[in-house]
């Protein structure tokens, strides 16, 4: 009983900490993007609120929160409200199964992962797939042709790329023989970079596929057709404002972080050091516990940087190119990757 | 171990002729065809003669059989086996001898016919089957010959197949014979059922082994055989085909429908006499049929004007005599008459053929007359034959017919009546034969001397002329035989030694031993007296004919009377059969079967099923409304039904 209570309390604590950190990270990812894109476009980006514009996310949040919540008269009200909630909820759920540090137990509770699930990877995929509804419903319930078209595009795009994404991780799963994310990371932890799936595991192709599909899943450039301002005004966002818009906005950036985290876990050794056991542990138990968290955050940060970098660099795809790329290139490539990996594993077993 | 007589060769010789002519005759020159057609029967005849010379060194009956059986199933088998005894030998001589003569005659007669090769191949085929029939050592092989000669007869009657009447006649002959064969077949089934074999020797041995076996099944078998015999030998009630068979070429009539094939019935009864001896009822039936046929056919013959039809009815009548002889269990007499009849009737036909030939195909006696001078050879040979058939001493017919009448007179089972009718018939015979004789050869010529186109191929006949020597030679030979052929059976009562009777005696020995109706041996005096009486009857017949036809050769319209009308229309028998059997059968088939059963029941069932299926489909079609929700409902209902069955009716399966 006591044990159960402790478990509940510690879990609630973990959830609270992770959620706060995650939401903060989301907010600052927005800032990061604006700053970086500004630099790429040879301008400053936000710099007025706070030092280096560091308070800008707070100001943005305040603005959106205080803005009048417009409810267009023609919308399907329940769904119109439900859609951003679904989107955000799904975006925030995935983090629950991700390990972000060593398996260090306190009172028998793993402190660096909210829930260790045998089929953790599947949970992430499942939650991601549920997230589609947010976009789909928003477009439909808005009762606006731009919204509908945007959400149709987005839905089609997400369904299409989800296949490639799902297939790309199979190589990793094959190597590991488990769907447990900790198992996956542990396999990559031994020799640092050399044992990461992306490199030592020779899943570089899968990594590439995952990366591309992840861009598409999050509707980021160069796959940001659903909200292409110049064509669809703003896609499924069009009718949304204030907090509801903020939820979509947050969901998008949360998804970016999610995707980055998953990529880190699957391909880049997760919280493990890039040097593996090259350097013996230094520092005390605190360092021992927190250093993996640092590595994890650093790798995810690299991804976010990449996201922004790509956004600032690449042009947008045409819609048919997008579909063609997904179905005719990525999907066969992913299948080939699965086959090759399977064969290699079968031979070297 | 007796050396082989190579009996198998005997039928195969004509068969070879048939095959050669049948397959390639169309392309061979006529002379070649004739050579083939004559050579093989001649060879067969020669072999028969050779057998005659050898026969004293053989134990008769002599059986030869092939190593391989013909039919062999569990419980029954039949061999290709040939039997040679005195009876067979006599038949062989007649068949090959007379057969060869008629072949020879045909070479002249058919010389200008289309399908010459076909004719001779058929004739050879006939000989093949006839020899098979005669030689057969079991019922089944006999039946092969039996049907086979029927086939040959069918083909030859229908030789002029473009003539509807000829084709019809052939068909009629075959079918009527088939009715007889029906009896024959049933007889064989009975034999198999009761004896398990069809071999003559085994069957007869089985019968003689049981002295008490009499009547019953044997009568049944015998009567069925008689049915067969009446068909083949043109007796009442199945004689109707023979007059029509005169549609065939005349040599065919001579060979098949006078000398050989039609006597097969008599031969068969003689061959199976063991059966008949044990069943007096059957014998009585045979005698009755024979007498009735003899009389009846004679009366019809009196009124016929077609020369060949007169002879046809005469044949029927004479066959009746043979039946009568068999019916009174004097089989050897029957066979004797068979032999003499073969001589004179063949001669009569051939001579008639010569006349027809001379007249360019004319067969109606009313358009003949006065041919005595034009056709001297024909006339004289014909005269011999007429005297023979009428039974004038010392011609062949006298001996055989006289013997039959005498035996009949002595027979215990109603012989007197048979005798009386037979005697009257003898008179009638003389009457119609001399009528024919007078109408053909005497009086003023009534024919027109012009080429007749009616008879195909005789367009060349400019004027009436005697036939070529190939035709006359057989006439002469047969004329001599008609005169002297009967001497072999010269009865002891008239100072002879009845060589023929003694020769055949071994074959019929059982008959005299077992038969219940033992003849009282006629005294010589009685026999002499009977001869005189029958001669007298013949003379009366001649006298009446002379009165009527020599004096008034123009033969005015005969006075109409109900009887003469009846006779002139052959007692309306053909019409009777048509009305009683054929037409009702066809009507029954058309109305009851084709009308009621086939289109009513069978097709009706079809229609009914169609309607049921249609109605059912229509009902089911309504379910296929095309409405998805109704489908859904049916689906749900079906699922519910399955569920119910699974849950609550599980005990059903």
């Amino acid at each position: 009983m006591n044990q159960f209570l402790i478990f509940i309390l510690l879990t609630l604590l973990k959830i609270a900490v992770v959620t706060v950190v995650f939401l903060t990270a989301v907010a600052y990812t927005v800032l990061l993007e604006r700053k970086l894109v500004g630099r790429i476009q040879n301008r400053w980006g936000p710099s007025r609120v706070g030092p280096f514009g560091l308070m800008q996310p707070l100001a943005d949040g305040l603005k959106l929160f205080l803005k009048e919540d417009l409810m267009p008269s023609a919308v399907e009200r329940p769904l119109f409200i439900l859609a951003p909630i679904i989107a955000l909820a799904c975006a925030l759920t995935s983090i629950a199964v991700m390990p972000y540090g060593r398996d260090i137990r306190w009172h028998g509770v793993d402190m660096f992962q909210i829930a260790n699930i045998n089929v953790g990877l599947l949970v992430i995929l499942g939650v991601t797939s549920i997230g589609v509804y947010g976009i789909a419903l928003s477009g439909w319930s808005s009762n606006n042709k731009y919204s509908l078209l945007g959400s149709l595009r987005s839905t089609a795009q997400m369904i299409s790329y989800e296949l490639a994404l799902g297939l790309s991780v199979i190589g990793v799963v094959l190597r590991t023989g488990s769907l447990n994310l900790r198992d996956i990371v542990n396999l990559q932890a031994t020799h640092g970079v050399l044992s990461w799936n992306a490199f030592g595991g020779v899943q570089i192709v899968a990594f590439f596929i995952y990366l591309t599909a992840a861009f598409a899943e999050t509707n980021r450039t160069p796959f940001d057709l659903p909200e292409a301002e110049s064509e669809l005004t703003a896609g499924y966002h069009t009718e949304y404002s204030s907090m509801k818009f903020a939820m979509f906005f947050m969901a998008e950036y949360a998804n970016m972080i999610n995707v980055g985290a998953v990529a880190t876990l699957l391909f880049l050794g997760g919280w493990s050091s890039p040097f593996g056991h090259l350097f013996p542990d230094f520092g005390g138990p605190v360092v021992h516990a927190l250093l993996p968290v640092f590595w994890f955050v650093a790798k995810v940060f690299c991804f976010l940087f990449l996201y922004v970098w790509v956004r600032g660099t690449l042009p947008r795809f045409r819609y048919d190119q997008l579909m063609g790329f997904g179905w005719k290139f990525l999907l066969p490539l992913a299948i080939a990757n699965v086959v090759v990996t399977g064969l290699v594993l079968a031979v070297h077993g | 171990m007796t050396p082989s007589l190579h009996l198998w060769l005997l039928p195969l010789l004509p068969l070879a002729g048939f095959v050669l002519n049948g397959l390639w005759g169309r392309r061979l020159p006529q002379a070649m065809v004739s050579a083939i057609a004559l050579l093989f029967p001649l060879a067969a005849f020669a072999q028969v003669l050779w057998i005659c010379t050898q026969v004293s060194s053989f134990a008769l009956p002599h059986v030869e059989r092939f190593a391989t059986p013909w039919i062999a199933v569990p419980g029954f088998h039949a061999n290709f086996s040939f039997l040679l005894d005195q009876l067979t030998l006599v038949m062989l001589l007649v068949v090959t001898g007379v057969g060869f003569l008629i072949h020879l005659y045909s070479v002249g007669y058919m010389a200008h016919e289309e399908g010459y090769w076909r004719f001779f191949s058929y004739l050879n085929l006939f000989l093949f089957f006839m020899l098979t029939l005669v030689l057969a050592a079991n019922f089944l092989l006999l039946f092969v010959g039996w049907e086979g000669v029927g086939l040959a007869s069918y083909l030859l009657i229908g030789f002029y197949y473009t003539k509807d009447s000829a084709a019809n006649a052939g068909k009629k002959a075959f079918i009527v014979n088939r009715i007889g064969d029906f009896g024959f077949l049933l007889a064989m089934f009975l034999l198999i059922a009761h004896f398990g074999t069809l071999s003559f020797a085994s069957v007869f041995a089985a019968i003689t082994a049981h002295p008490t076996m009499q009547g019953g099944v044997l009568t049944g078998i015998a009567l069925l055989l008689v049915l067969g015999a009446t068909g083949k030998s043109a007796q009442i009630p199945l004689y109707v085909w023979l007059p029509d068979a005169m549609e065939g070429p005349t040599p065919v009539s001579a060979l098949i429908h006078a000398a050989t094939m039609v006597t097969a019935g008599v031969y068969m009864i003689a061959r199976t006499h063991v059966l008949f001896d044990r069943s007096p009822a059957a014998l009585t039936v045979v005698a009755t049929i024979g007498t009735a046929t003899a009389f009846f056919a004679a009366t019809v013959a009196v009124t016929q004007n077609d020369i060949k039809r007169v002879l046809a009815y005469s044949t029927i009548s004479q066959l009746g005599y043979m039946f009568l002889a068999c019916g009174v269990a004097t089989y050897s007499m029957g066979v004797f008459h068979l032999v003499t009849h073969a001589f004179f009737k063949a001669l009569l036909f051939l001579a008639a053929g010569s006349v027809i030939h001379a007249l360019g195909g004319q067969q109606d006696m009313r358009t003949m007359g006065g041919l005595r001078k034009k056709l001297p050879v024909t006339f004289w040979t014909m005269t011999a034959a007429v005297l023979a058939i009428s039974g004038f001493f010392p011609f062949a017919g006298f001996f055989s017919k006289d013997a039959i009448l005498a035996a009949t007179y002595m027979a215990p089972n109603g012989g007197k009546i048979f005798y009386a009718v037979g005697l009257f018939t003898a008179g009638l015979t003389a009457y119609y034969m001399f009528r024919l004789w007078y109408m053909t050869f005497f009086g003023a010529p009534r024919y027109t001397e012009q080429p007749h186109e009616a008879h195909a191929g005789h367009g060349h006949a400019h004027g009436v002329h005697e036939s070529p020597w190939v035709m006359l030679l057989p006439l002469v030979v047969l004329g001599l035989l008609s005169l002297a052929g009967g001497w072999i059976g010269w009865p002891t009562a008239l100072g002879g030694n009845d060589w023929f009777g003694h020769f055949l005696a071994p074959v019929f020995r059982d008959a005299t031993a077992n038969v219940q109706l033992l003849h009282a041996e006629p005294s010589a005096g009685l026999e002499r007296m009977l001869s005189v009486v029958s001669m007298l009857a013949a003379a009366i017949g001649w006298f009446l004919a002379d009165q009527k036809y020599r004096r008034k050769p123009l033969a005015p319209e005969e006075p109409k009377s109900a009887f003469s009308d009846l006779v002139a229309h052959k007692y309306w028998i053909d019409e009777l059969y048509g009305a009683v059997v054929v037409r009702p059968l066809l009507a029954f088939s058309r109305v009851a079967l084709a009308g009621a059963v086939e289109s009513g029941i069978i097709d009706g069932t079809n229609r009914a099923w169609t309607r049921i299926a249609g109605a059912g489909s229509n009902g089911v079609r309504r379910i296929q409304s095309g409405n998805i929700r109704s489908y859904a409902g049916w689906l749900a209902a079906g699922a519910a039904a399955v569920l119910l069955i699974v849950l609550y009716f599980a005990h059903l399966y």
Partner: protein
Amino acid sequence: MSVPIAWYLILSAALFSIGVCAFLIKRNIISIFMSIELMLNAVNLAFVAFANRWHQVNGQIFVFFVMVVAAAEAAVGLAIIIAVFRSRNTLNVDQIDLMKL
């Protein structure tokens, strides 16, 4: 606290019955299709419950096959629906009766 398997089964039966009912009374062809999916899911639940009861994975495997078939069915079915809609311009099953002779 343990839950009797029978309850799962009764829940499954309830879902199935509702599916059947929806199958019958829905008029939109897509809704009908969805009710079929509902029935399939109800059956799946029963399978999983039985798998638990007998501690056999085969029941679950069967659910996989059902899922695959359902996926295939959805793909083809929806394609058909799209094709039908293109030609008839309606989704009401009562108006889609081309199969009527």
